[in-house]
């Protein structure tokens, strides 16, 4: 066990965990930030996506010891009032079915738009390819991203 100080959603948090613990489980088990989900544990489904210094990262395969002073943003910290353009577009298009993948989708989409405010359809599909949606809401996800792009 070791003490780690990490920056999560603008706050500094101290956690006492094994050094190889993925950020995902620190968020969930230690900090009770439960919006970031577990789906595969091997960076193949995207439900655990967070921002690390703005980049979309699969938190299930990223050990806490490698975080250093990089800034973590989770779905809970994406916006104060749940009104990030991507979140708004998600509601406007009524994207979710079961909803389990959607926090991860939103985190990948918001990082994409931050880096490429006007992506082509092809760029959207490619950027979102690492985020599975077992309910297959892909068409709505992509529509919502196009709407959000207009809004950013």
């Amino acid at each position, binding site marked *: *066990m070791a003490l780690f100080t990490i920056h999560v959603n603008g706050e500094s948090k101290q956690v006492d*965990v*094994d050094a*190889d*613990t*993925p950020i995902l*489980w620190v968020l*969930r*088990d*230690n900090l*009770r*930030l*439960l*919006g970031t*989900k*577990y*789906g*595969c*544990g*091997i960076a*193949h*489904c995207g*439900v655990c996506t967070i921002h690390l210094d703005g980049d979309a990262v699969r938190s299930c395969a990223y050990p806490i010891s490698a975080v250093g002073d990089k800034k973590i943003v*989770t*779905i*809970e910290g*994406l916006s104060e009032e*749940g009104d990030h353009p991507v*979140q708004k577009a*998600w*509601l406007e298009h*009524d994207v*979710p*079915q*079961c*909803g*389990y*993948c*959607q*926090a991860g989708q*939103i985190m990948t989409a918001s990082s994409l738009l931050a880096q490429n405010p006007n992506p082509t*359809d092809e760029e*959207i*599909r*490619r950027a*979102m*390819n*690492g*985020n*599975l*949606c*077992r*309910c*297959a*809401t*892909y*068409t*709505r*996800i*992509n529509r919502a991203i196009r709407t959000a792009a207009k809004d950013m």
Partner: protein
Amino acid sequence: MAKVKTHFNRRSFLKLSAAGGAGLMLQFSWFSALAKENPNLESAFDLNGYIKIATDGTVTIASPNPEIGQNVKTSMPMIVAEELDVNWKNVKVVQAPLNTDIFTRQLAGGSNSINQSWNALRMAGATARYMLVEAAAKAWNVPSSSIKVDAGVISHAASGKSAGFGEMAEAASKIEVPKEVDVKSIKDFKIIRNSQFNVDGPSIVTGKPLFGLDVYGDDMVYASIVHPPAFGMELKSFDATEALAMKGIYDVFTIDAYPEDFERGYFDITAFPKLIIITGDSTWRIMKAKKLINAEWMPFEEHTIKVKGFRGNATDQKVPTKIENTDKQYASMIALSKENPRQARKDGNPEKAFANAAKVIEREYTAPYLAHSPLEPLNFYANVTDDKAELIGPIQTPEYMEQSVAQRFGLSLEQIDIQMTRIGGGFGRKLFGHYLLEAAVISKKIKKPVKLIYTREDDMTFGAYRPMYHAYYRAGLDENNNLIAFHVKAGGIPESPLYANRFPAGAVDNYLAESWTIESNITTAAFRAPRSNFMGAVEQAFLDEVAELAGKDPIDFRLELFDRAIKNPVGERNDYDAKRYAGVLKLIKEKSNWGTPKPGLSRGVAAYFCHNSYVANVVDLRMENDKPIIEKVYCATDCGIVVNPIGAANMIEGGSVDGIGHALYSMLTVKDGVPQQKNYNDYHLIRNNDAPWDVETYFVESDVHPTGLGEPPFAPAIGALTNALYKETGKRYYHQPFMVDIESMFLKDEAAV
């Protein structure tokens, strides 16, 4: 207006109230974020199990059924609100607890939630409305027939009196529940048929804890499983020394969730009743400890398990001792498909008709095991003591699992509280609640609350797959290219997908349907209506070939057959309405501009009926680097009244894309009983980049009782895909998944079989 009988009684309300006090409807009370959003709930008045009205007029409606992504948590309360005549904006929705005294069929499955609860939901709303009106009539001393209700306001024109629901809530809660009530006529609907956003949308996009995996109780212990690596195996011995030496690991032990003499319920399917359990202080540590267990496994002996049928009749089921291999399974399916099967239906004289036919065509189709792979893996929270069981998590069949828990621990139903979280996908997998019972057994044993979590690998290799299927089709045309004979012979491991009375039964004079099965110890389970989804897909692919052989347009060919089934059906028992079937085909023809070629794209069409709904699809695609680029999918649906159009369209889009995805990419194989795909790196699900670019949905306008939406688009989407692929490549696809070369991998020697 129509009258419906109410089935409420005072006793069931009292029980509901006594069980949890005023706050009972506020489930998952530690989800304090949600609790804060509903400050008025505690003091609200309970009109019946579904509806609570606070003095400020806020109406809280309990949604009875498990929410798995089919959007019932929005659509079911919409139906209640419609009959209550409240403004939807003033409605808050909460998930109801399991309570069989009040709610009917609290189950998510078979695309049946709305279909079977329609009347009960309308009755709940209408009853409460009646009680509010009666209360106002009493208070104002006017006849109730002169009182109007509109959007949560009760008014009496002659006296000019009016009151909000909140003002009458307390008085209404004391009115006797009527024996029957009037419900609205369909033309007066104001909420139903208007799109309402997913009630959980804001919570989902902000990451609120809604799912089973998000349940964290005080003093909770984390638990994971180690199960046999292969079907047909069981535990011989294990050594946990290394795992127990790990920091944060509490214990390693075995459980037997379903002892041999336990009479299992219909949904108690598990291939692995005996498990090694690891408990510890965090998810990561128990997951790491799993890898340190040294276990020895051995093949089990053939044995029988006692299983209650769906209707309570107990049977002994044989579990064969067998170590399965996918290639041998394909070989045995093909071998059996050539033997004498069980006849399920025969019309006319099929053999004679085939002998006389001018043209005969025969084809074979297969489909592999599929793993359900909901993104939320199996998990459950349990706190079980000697005299109570508290169970919280994702479950499609709470009613049935309550029975299993009662039987397993000798508890009465009153001692068991099952709370349903939002379900992070199930597709049938979470109908089978062994993981709920396992969590309960662990909690009882360690005398602590526990959260059981399957890893993705556990979830994928645990079984309860979509069965493997095979279908053989034969059709005969006369010299005028009329379909005069049709033969379907279908089977699978371990169940047959055949529906003997579905189309084209009823539209052909000479018809034969036959069935066979092969047993296995690999457990299988409902997977998005597996039989319909296989049969619909392959039948529609076959009919495309038959239409081509007849030199007819595929839509016209089908319409001809439906015409026959409408005017002069063959046989008495045909499980479809040919007019509605033809209706969706006509709608898709119009909306897709069928017959007008789209440059650079190839198109296919299909239609199918299941779960009482009719769906037709057209798929437009092209091949690029041997990969289908699906630019557009059109869907026309007849599911009766569309309760919530935006949610319904989401279902249809998802079902179509999911069907296409599985038909192209997904399969689970076994070698020496060991599942060969363990996680999403080797189990291929459709991803964003391969998904159809656009799905356009259309609904037939209808006043018919609403029916299923979850599953009906799956099969025709696959059919349309298959037929479009043929147009594009000139090649017919017979073996799912199409992007895997099943023939060279598994069917090479079949000529010799």
